[in-house]
C-alpha cells in the first residue's frame, strides 16, 4: 500500500497519457488516489496547475516574417558554405599543384646530364685500383677473399663488382676491363673458386686454357691455383687487355 509521501512524490511524474512511471508505480498511485481523498484533491489541483503553466509557457507570439528571414539566412549560409568549400578545395588543389610542380622541377634539374665526353674521360682514367693487390684489398674489405688475375693490365681495369655467373645461381666477384681505341675490347671477368666449382678440367698454369668465341677460362698459377677466371669478352682481341709480357 503506497503512503501519502510516496504518492505526492510520484505525482510530479504522473502526466496524463504519459508512461513516465513504471506500470506498477502508476497502478499503485491510482489505487492510492482512489483511496485517499486528500491526495486525490492534490493530484487534481496539480494537473490544473500544470495545464495553466503549460498554456502560459506556450503563449509566445511569433515575430512577423520569421520563417522568411530564417530561409533567407539559411540560403546565405549555404552560399557562404559553398564558397568556403570551393576556396578550400581550390587552395588545396593549388598547394598540390605547386608541390607536384616543384617536385617535377627538382627531379628534372637534379638528374645529371648523360655526357659521353665525361664517360670517355672517366673510362680512360679507369678506376683507382691499379693492381691485383688493390682489387683483392677492395674485395677483402667486403668480406670476400679472392685472388685477382695477374695477366691483365690494370690500367684498363674499369670496376670491381659482384655478379651472377651465367648458367649458375652463384654470385661471384666480377671485374670489368675495357680498353678503348680502334680495336676496343670489353671483358667481364668472373672470379670463381675451387670451393664453389670443380676446376679439375682446367690446368693450373696461368694460361688461357679454353677459347670458345669470346669465352675464356683462365686458371690461376700456383701457389694460387684455387681460382679460375671466366672471361666473357666482346670486340677486339683479349690480349689487348693483358700486360705486354702476358700478351706475348
Amino acid at each position: 500500500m503506497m503512503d501519502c509521501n510516496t504518492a505526492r512524490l510520484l505525482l510530479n511524474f504522473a502526466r496524463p497519457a504519459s508512461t513516465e512511471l513504471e506500470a506498477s508505480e502508476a497502478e499503485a498511485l491510482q489505487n492510492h488516489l482512489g483511496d485517499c481523498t486528500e491526495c486525490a484533491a492534490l493530484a487534481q489541483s496539480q494537473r490544473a496547475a500544470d495545464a495553466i503553466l503549460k498554456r502560459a509557457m506556450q503563449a509566445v507570439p511569433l515575430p512577423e516574417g520569421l520563417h522568411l528571414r530564417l530561409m533567407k539566412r539559411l540560403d546565405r549560409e549555404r552560399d557562404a558554405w559553398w564558397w568556403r568549400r570551393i576556396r578550400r578545395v581550390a587552395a588545396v588543389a593549388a598547394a598540390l599543384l605547386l608541390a607536384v610542380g616543384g617536385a617535377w622541377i627538382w627531379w628534372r634539374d637534379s638528374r645529371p646530364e648523360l655526357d659521353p665526353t665525361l664517360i670517355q674521360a672517366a673510362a680512360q682514367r679507369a678506376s683507382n685500383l691499379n693492381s691485383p693487390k688493390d682489387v683483392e684489398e677492395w674485395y677483402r674489405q667486403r668480406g670476400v677473399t679472392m685472388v685477382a688475375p695477374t695477366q691483365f693490365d690494370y690500367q684498363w681495369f674499369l670496376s670491381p663488382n659482384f655478379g651472377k655467373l651465367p648458367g649458375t645461381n652463384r654470385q661471384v666477384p666480377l671485374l670489368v676491363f675495357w680498353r678503348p681505341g680502334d680495336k676496343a675490347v670489353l671483358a667481364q671477368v668472373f672470379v670463381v673458386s675451387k670451393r664453389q666449382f670443380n676446376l679439375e678440367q682446367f690446368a693450373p698454369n696461368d694460361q688461357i686454357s679454353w677459347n670458345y668465341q669470346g669465352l675464356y677460362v683462365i686458371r690461376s698459377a700456383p701457389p694460387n691455383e684455387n681460382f679460375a677466371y671466366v672471361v666473357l669478352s666482346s670486340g677486339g682481341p683479349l690480349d689487348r687487355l693483358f700486360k705486354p709480357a702476358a700478351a706475348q
Partner: protein
Amino acid sequence: VQKLVADYYESLYRYAYRLTGCSADAEDLTQEAFCQAQMKLSQLRDQNRAKAWLFSILRNAYLHRLRAEKHEPRLSLDGMSDLAQPVPESLPEVDPERLQRALNELEEVFRTPIILYYFEDFTYREIAEQMDLPMGTVMSRLARAKSYLRTRLLQPVSELATDGSRRANDGL
C-alpha cells in the same frame, strides 16, 4: 532542411524565447540552430528524432552564448523539496510575461527541463538525453522547478506577500 524549418521553426523559436527571455536573442538563436543543423544534416539519421536533435543543437548554442556572457546570479533550487505541494483550489491564469520573469531568475539547469517539460511534452528520458544527465537528476530538478513555478505564479498575491519570508527560507 527546408522541411525541418517548416516543421519546427515555431517550436524552436518559442523554446529559444523561453530560454533567453528576449525575442531578438531568440530569433538569433533559432537562426543559428538551423544554420548548424544545415551543416550537420548528415548526422541526423533518424527523422523521428529531428525535433529532439534540433532542440539539442539550440540548447548547445544557447549554453555556448551563456558561457561567453557575464550574467546575474540565478536562483538555485537545490534546497527545495521534491514533494508536490498543495496549490489553491481556484487558480488564476498565468501572465506569460510573468512566467518569463520567473524563468529568467532560474538557473539554466532548472530552466531547461521545465521548459521542455511544459512546452513540448518531452519525456523525462528525452530531457535526460538532451541534457546528458541521469534521469533521476532530471526528475528531481523538474520536481523542484515545478514546485517553484507553482508557488511563484499560482499563489494568490496576498499569500505571496505574507509568505515572502518563508519562501526565502525555502530557497526561493
